[in-house]
């Protein structure tokens, strides 16, 4: 037992020495009006998910580099019951804007807005059925983005078979991407008199926590589609989709990304990256944060931009008439002359 005490004593001394070297915590006082602080609470998931959590966080960081926000901080949620607590962590610290990511946080966000009337909340992917003071829901027309790349894939496909590998259709944005993709392909067919077979596969057979993080399944599914002749694969659904994109690019098919311009995030697929169905979360979040600081923010629903990414390396192989058609469709979608006819939620 003597040895035990020696060990303990040594530990205590060591801890004292070490703590003296430790850096002090962030001294900035978010409660003061001079310091503009932005906090972000993730859905159950990682901040580096290469998907909506990460995009939103990059938006917050962008606000910092743009000089809008002075302090930015995030908290990863590990369990749904912590939503309120995690938001309160920022609320109690006197943050000025809090970004909550994902539909699941919608209720906690609305509730927190009542508790912290001085703080403005930005809810990414949170559709506001009725306006709550202090909450702005940032939503995106994913079906439009899906429509664009669907039309593009149908026009570029030589085999007239195209595929989409998605996360779970339980999540509405994912489902809207998939449905938009189909609608876009059908639109292109109608325009060009072609018949394109569209495979859309969702990874609904696993748990909610795994459906977006299974690249191996995505890759295998993409390969199966290519076996059936598909030559353009749209990967929609986080990491699972990334698996499909990489597999498609390796097999020499056209790869289509999602959310951001994945030409930049998936270099290994870059040479075959045709485009990406973009849902511009990062600029959307940054823009809203800036609006909070200006005081120009409006509560209720705010719609962000959706579009398609540049062709990058494949610029030369996309025919001019396809490029023109894409511009026409994009304009049509924006002015409402073309409709995707995709409902907001899976019926």
């Amino acid at each position, binding site marked *: 037992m003597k040895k035990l005490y020696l060990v303990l004593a040594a530990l205590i001394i060591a801890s004292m020495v070490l703590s003296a070297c430790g850096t002090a915590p962030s001294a900035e006082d978010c409660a003061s009006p001079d310091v503009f602080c932005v906090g972000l609470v993730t859905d159950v998931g990682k901040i580096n998910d290469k998907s909506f959590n990460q995009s939103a966080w990059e938006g917050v960081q962008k606000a910092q580099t743009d000089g809008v926000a002075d302090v930015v901080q995030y908290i990863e949620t590990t369990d749904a*019951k912590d939503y309120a*607590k995690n938001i309160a962590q920022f609320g109690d610290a006197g943050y000025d804007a809090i970004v909550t990511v994902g539909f699941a946080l919608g209720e906690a966000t609305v509730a927190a807005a009542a508790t912290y009337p001085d703080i403005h909340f930005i809810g990414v992917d949170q559709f506001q059925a009725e306006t709550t003071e202090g909450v702005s829901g940032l939503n995106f027309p994913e079906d439009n983005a899906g429509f664009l790349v669907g039309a593009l894939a149908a026009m570029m496909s030589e085999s007239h078979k195209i595929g989409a590998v998605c996360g779970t259709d339980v*999540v509405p944005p994912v489902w809207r991407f998939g449905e938009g993709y189909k609608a876009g392909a059908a639109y292109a067919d109608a325009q060009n008199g072609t018949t394109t077979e569209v495979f859309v596969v969702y990874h609904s057979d696993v748990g909610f926590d795994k459906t977006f993080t299974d690249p191996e399944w995505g890759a295998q599914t993409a390969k199966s589609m290519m076996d059936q002749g598909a030559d353009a694969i749209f990967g929609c659904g986080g990491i699972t989709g990334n698996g499909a994109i990489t597999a498609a690019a390796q097999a020499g098919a056209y790869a289509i990304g999602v959310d951001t311009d994945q030409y930049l995030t998936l270099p290994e697929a870059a040479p075959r990256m045709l485009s990406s169905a973009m849902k511009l979360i990062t600029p959307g979040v940054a823009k809203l944060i800036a609006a909070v600081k200006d005081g120009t923010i409006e509560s209720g629903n705010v719609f962000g931009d959706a579009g398609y990414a540049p062709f990058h390396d494949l610029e030369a192989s996309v025919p001019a008439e396809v490029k023109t058609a894409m511009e026409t469709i994009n304009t049509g979608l924006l002015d409402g002359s073309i409709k995707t006819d995709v409902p907001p939620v899976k019926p």
Partner: protein
Amino acid sequence: MQAEKQSSSLARQILKSATESSLIPFLAILTAVIVGGIIISIVGGNPFQAYRGLIEGSLGSQKALSETAVWATPYIFAGLAVALAFKGGLFNIGAEGQLALGAVFSSLIGYALPGWLGFDLPTIIHLPLAIIVGMIAGGIWAGVVGALKAYTGGHEVINTIMMNYIALNTTSFLLNGIMKDKSPTNVIARTPMIADSARIPTIFEGLRVHWGFLLALLVAFFIWWLLTKTTLGFEIRTVGLNPDAAKYAGINVKRTITLTMVFSGMLAGLAGAIEVTGLNFRHELGFSIGYGFDAIAIALLGKSHPLGVVLAAILFAAMRNGATRMQFITQLPVDLISMLQAFILLFVAADAIVRYIYRVKSKGERVVLTRGWGG
């Protein structure tokens, strides 16, 4: 042992055995904290700030304490579930699935029963009913595994893992289909909110800690009483320690194995039911991530003793709850908590390592918790 001295020496004995049996878990936690600290430093974090954040976030305020209790509630139930199975010689890896089933059926009763009946129920009937149905669902789910083990010899470890997957798919199926909240504002896979009459009230105004926490403590006491004071507990322990002797002693081993698993599943189901009725008021997909494995760690750390399980559950709850504050202060990844828990479990399981480091002598024989596949 003289009779007159017995009571005082008994108290001393209990104290002594308590210190002795908590020494190794304590040293294991200490070692894990040190090892974790070293890893944090290596990868560029500050372990002292991290630990400060953990303690502040879990114990630093009324609210923090309340949240720790909120976290501890399902941990106690799930930990007891695994511990009870251990006592009966069974390894229940499937607490996760049983918990999900319990939550699903508890919420079903919670939101749908008044509609089926056509009238509202008083809390005194509705709430217990919701909890009990969840409990039974978990019990049946585990009971299948218990019966397979008892009557066909199918090993419970593999079967509970398989049942976890089946539970997951079943829950997905239900929550996306017939049990999905059909209200236009909802888009994700979750049930409607349960009726007010099926909700557990909170203990203090403004804090989330609810009476379910107290129920957890009561159930822990009940399990202790069941195991040590009743004939059924004697049967469960005998089957756990020596099934051959149990059979010889006239105990119906197959029934006891099945029952143990049913009870274990009921406790896990209770964890889910209490989460629904006391905290979330609905069940949604992805709500339980990793309770099953945490529960194993809790049961092991608590040496499968109900009091130990309660303490271990509170420790784990404090770690999980304090993680928010820790992240806020240091921006260290939450996975740190999982890592710490893994180290604690490692040092508890391999107590020889801890004994070696601190030169603590081993006493008594090794307790066999599980057996091989057994054909």
